[in-house]
C-alpha cells in the first residue's frame, strides 16, 4: 500500500492533521470570549473534537515518516513554512459571522472528504476518518444552523455573514484543487478523489446558502495554497502562541 511514495503518504496525513490542529487552536482563542455561554460551549466542543482528531493524525503521520517524531514534536517544533494546513483554517476569528462562515466552509469540506477517507486503503487513516466523521456531522449541524440564522436574520447579520463569505472564499479554492500529492494518494487508494469531494461540497454550500438567503461569492482570480506551506500573515502569530512553552522549555510536561 504505502510502499510507493511513503513521503507523500506522510505529507498527505500531515496536511489533514495541520488543518485540524490550526483550526482547533483558532477556536480555542474564543473560549471564555464567545458571544453567549451556549456558543462558548459549542465552539469549545468543536475545537476539542478537531484537536483530538489532529492528535490521532499527527501520531499516525509520525509513524509514516519513520524518523521518531511524535505528535508533540510535529505540533510544537515545526516552523511556519513546514505547516501544511489550508489557509482557511488560520484566518482570524473576526466577528461571530467570520467564525461561523469559516467553520461552515470547513465542516462541509471535512464531511465530504472524510466520508471517502473512511474507505482508505490505509487502515489507520480509515479508522480515524470513520470516527471523525460522526463528530463532523454535529459540527456541520451547528455551523450550518448558525449560518442560516445569521444570513436569514437581520440586515446587519446578513451583511456581516455575506462579507465573511467574500473574505474567506479565496481560501476555499485549495480545498478541492488536487496537486501531485493528492493525485498520487488517490491513485494509491489512500486519499480521496477531490473531484467528487468538490461536487459534494458544492451541493452542501449551495443548499445552505440558499436557505440562508446568501449569495455564493464569485471564484476569485487569486488563491492560496497553505497545503504547500504558503501562508499569509496570520499563521506565524498563531504558532508563536501555540508553541511558546515547548520552544522555551523543551520537553516540558505536566
Amino acid at each position, binding site marked *: 500500500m504505502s510502499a510507493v511514495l511513503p513521503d507523500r503518504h506522510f505529507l498527505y496525513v500531515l496536511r489533514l492533521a495541520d488543518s485540524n490542529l490550526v483550526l482547533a487552536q483558532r477556536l480555542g482563542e474564543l473560549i471564555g470570549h464567545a458571544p453567549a455561554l*451556549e456558543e462558548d*460551549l*459549542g465552539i*469549545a*466542543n*468543536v475545537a*476539542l*473534537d*478537531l*484537536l*483530538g*482528531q489532529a*492528535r*490521532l493524525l499527527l501520531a499516525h503521520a509520525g509513524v509514516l515518516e519513520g524518523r521518531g517524531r511524535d505528535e508533540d514534536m510535529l505540533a510544537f517544533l515545526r516552523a511556519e513554512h513546514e505547516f501544511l494546513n489550508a489557509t482557511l483554517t488560520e484566518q482570524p476569528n473576526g466577528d461571530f459571522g467570520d467564525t461561523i462562515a469559516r467553520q461552515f466552509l470547513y465542516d462541509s469540506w471535512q464531511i465530504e472528504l472524510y466520508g471517502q477517507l473512511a474507505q482508505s486503503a490505509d*487502515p*489507520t487513516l*480509515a*479508522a*480515524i476518518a*470513520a*470516527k*471523525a466523521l*460522526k*463528530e463532523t456531522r*454535529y459540527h456541520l*449541524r*451547528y455551523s450550518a*444552523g448558525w449560518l442560516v440564522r445569521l444570513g436569514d436574520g437581520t440586515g446587519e447579520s446578513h451583511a456581516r455573514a455575506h462579507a465573511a463569505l467574500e473574505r474567506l472564499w479565496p481560501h476555499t479554492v485549495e480545498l478541492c484543487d488536487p496537486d501531485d500529492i493528492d493525485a498520487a494518494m488517490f491513485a494509491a487508494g489512500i486519499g480521496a478523489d477531490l473531484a467528487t469531494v468538490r461536487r459534494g461540497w458544492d451541493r452542501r454550500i449551495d443548499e445552505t446558502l440558499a436557505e440562508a438567503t446568501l449569495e455564493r461569492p464569485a471564484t476569485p482570480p487569486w488563491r492560496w495554497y497553505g497545503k504547500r506551506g504558503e501562508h499569509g500573515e496570520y499563521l506565524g502569530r498563531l504558532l508563536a502562541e501555540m508553541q511558546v512553552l515547548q520552544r522555551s522549555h523543551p520537553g516540558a510536561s505536566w
Partner: protein
Amino acid sequence: MSAALRVPVDRDAIERDVWRCLAAVADPEIPVVSIVDLGIVRHVRVGERGDVEVGLTPTYSGCPATSVIRADVERALHGGGHRALRLVDVLAPPWTTDWISAEGRRKLAACGIAPPSPGPVVCPHCGSSATVLLSEFGSTPCKALHRCESCREPFDHFKCL
C-alpha cells in the same frame, strides 16, 4: 521453573474477574455509569500465563477523559492482583452510543441525563416528550442541553453517535 511445573491458570476465571474489576471503574465525567456500561471496554483477553490485555476505545476523538480512564483501569486491575497488564487502543469500529448497555441507560436517566435516543428526547425528570433543544453542545462533548416544556427543567441529553 519450567513452564511444565507452573500451576495452570484458569483463564476463564481471570477473565471474569477482570470484567468484575472493570465494572467498578466509573466514567470520570459521568460517575454514575461504569466504563463497561458505556461500552468503552472492547475486549478482555487472557494469555496462557494469566497475562491480561484490555482493549479500550475513546468515545469522542478529543475526549479528555481518555487518559484518566486508562489510569483508572490500571489502578483497578493492579489492585485486583492483575499485574501483567497491557492496555491497547481500539479505534475501529468507532464507538457508538448503541454500545451503552440497558443498565447504563437506566443509570443515566436516574441521574437526570436523557439516554441517547434517535426519536423524541424524553425528559428524564417527568417523562414528557415535549422537549426543546437549547444548545447542540452541553457540558461535555457527548451531551446536548435540552429543556422540558412540561416541567420546565433543563437537562442534558446524551447525544447519539
